[in-house]
């Protein structure tokens, strides 16, 4: 039954429900965004005036720039590492059947279901034991563990749509297994790979708990935000929060758009 075929009142009630639900989800973020542009130091209504002062303050903070640069470095490296691992895991699942494959898949998809606090502590204990803790690359290692399953899930979905004969067809036409990978599997999976790069970047850019445990003195943006918060409650937080939110959501939307566009061209193919 479509929404329109219901009565007028149930329809209005449903719309109201949806608005409330979204409002509940996004009101804090929206409020933070609004107050980041408010001239007043305290978040009170009515708003006192429009101002970029807090953005200027945050963007003139050396420590924030360092943190942003760290975050971008970590996010970039994490995206590449976790997408590479994710592709490997997804391809293994697509290509091979072996004993214990179910357990292999469960393990590969496990990290995001472990509380990040536990993961962070474990990472700290493990990495410091093998002297890999307290550096920026420690964060890259920790984030790659967390983000790889996301990359794997996206690429696995794409590979499941491949014609099972296509790799054999490439070999049959003279492509060695490596060239079949290079000229057939990778081009086919490309939209999912690009999408996975953006999504894993977003996962890393947002992540706080693990970064806090293993980063040592190399703060990422979320860790910096918490340091600012611990010092004082300043509207600067609203400004930096808005920036982080915008970057993250942009990455997620990009990942979504790339994948959906590819999905649509798939559907066009099906309808032929």
């Amino acid at each position, binding site marked *: 039954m479509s929404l329109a075929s219901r009565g007028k009142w149930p329809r209005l009630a449903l719309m109201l429900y949806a608005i409330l639900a979204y409002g509940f989800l996004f009101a804090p973020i929206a409020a933070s965004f609004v107050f980041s542009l408010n001239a007043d130091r305290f978040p009170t209504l009515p708003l006192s005036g429009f101002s970029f002062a807090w953005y200027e303050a945050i963007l003139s903070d050396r420590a924030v720039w360092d943190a942003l640069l760290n975050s971008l470095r970590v996010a970039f490296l994490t995206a590449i590492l976790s997408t590479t691992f994710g592709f490997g895991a997804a391809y293994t699942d697509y290509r091979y059947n072996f004993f214990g494959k179910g357990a292999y898949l469960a393990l590969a998809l496990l990290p995001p279901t472990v509380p990040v606090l536990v993961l962070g502590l474990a990472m700290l204990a493990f990495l410091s034991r093998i002297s890999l803790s307290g550096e920026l690359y420690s964060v890259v290692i920790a984030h790659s563990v967390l983000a790889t399953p996301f990359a794997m899930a996206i690429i696995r979905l794409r590979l499941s749509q491949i014609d099972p*004969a296509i790799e054999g067809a490439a070999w*049959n036409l003279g492509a060695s297994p490596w*060239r079949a990978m290079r000229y057939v599997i990778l081009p086919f999976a490309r939209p999912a790979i690009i999408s996975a790069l953006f999504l894993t970047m977003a996962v890393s850019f947002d992540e706080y708990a693990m970064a806090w445990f293993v980063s040592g003195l190399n703060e990422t943006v979320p860790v910096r935000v918490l340091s600012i918060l611990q010092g004082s409650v300043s509207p600067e937080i609203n400004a930096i929060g808005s920036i982080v939110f915008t970057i993250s959501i942009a990455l997620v939307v990009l990942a979504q758009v790339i994948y959906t566009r590819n999905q649509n061209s798939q559907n066009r*193919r099906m309808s032929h």
Partner: protein
Amino acid sequence: MSSVLQIKNVTKRFGAATAVDSLSLDVGAGEFLAIMGSSGSGKSTLLRMIAGLEQPSEGDILLNDVSTRGLAAHERDTPMVWQSLALFPFLNVLENVEFGLKMRGVAPAERRKRAMTWLERLEIERFAKRAITELSGGQRQRVALARSLVTEPPVLLLDEPLSALDAHLTMRMQSVLSGLQRELGITFVYVTHSHSEAFSMSDRVVIMSEGRIQQIGTPRDLYLRPVSRFVAEFLGANNIFSGEVREDHQGEKVLTTEDGPIRLPERAYSRALGERIELVVSSDRLVLTDGEAPNRLSGRLIGEEFIGAGVNLFLETGSGREIIIQVPQRELNDLSLTPGRSLTVGWLPDDGHVIESDDRFRHVS
């Protein structure tokens, strides 16, 4: 005729199951060979072994007298047209056709030229820059053919390539395929489960079951002289009588059946008395008769089936046996087909074909 492809005692096992069972087969240069069988008969596994996509457990496959043992798929020149076509969806038509040449290191200008020649040959040159998704089923079929033929291989393998097309397109592609094959002189090994595809195009047909060849021969041979009950039934023969060889009071060799004696073809006169044999009579060799015929059977009409040029009538004899007779339309005009009415069919003894009474194949069908 020299052999392009020799299959020597090839066995393929998957775990405990045997897909192909010590099979030997020679395919001549320029031959169109069809391999038929129901699913699970091992016909596709055989094709995949020729292409190197599976390795035989035992035996060897020779291409132009050279052993292929240990050669990976990409190291042999045995392109295949896949049932799903397996075209590369992210490449356009021209790039798909060029793929084999690119993998063989042919320079870009040269491979473009050669690919275009094949597109022209298959009359799809105007689609060269199109995406695969923008083509119809028949056009995709032609792209798949061009892609496989562009390297001008000695053998082309085809794995039920027409199964996804509608009847009309299948007919057209059949004539395209046999035309190409004759023109190029390339050996075609064509796996199918369709009688009409196998019989209309091929020089020889192989019937496979349980990983073994049941019979190999020209389409006419197979149709007129099936060697076993399995082959006869697989090719759609229905009128199979089994019984013992006897002599009637005139001294003629007959087959005793539950519906009375049936006179044997002259070819079968050498059969010993008391031998158990089976006799196949094709449904188009039977005629409706009102009395005189060397072999006669009467039965009750239990059904009819319209098949275009004629009608298949189903009769049930006194012993409960079902007989199918194919009657041309023009003979039906003055015949009332009331269910239950009694009809008599007749045939010439020499139109019967004797097969061994062999129980080996019974359980397969």
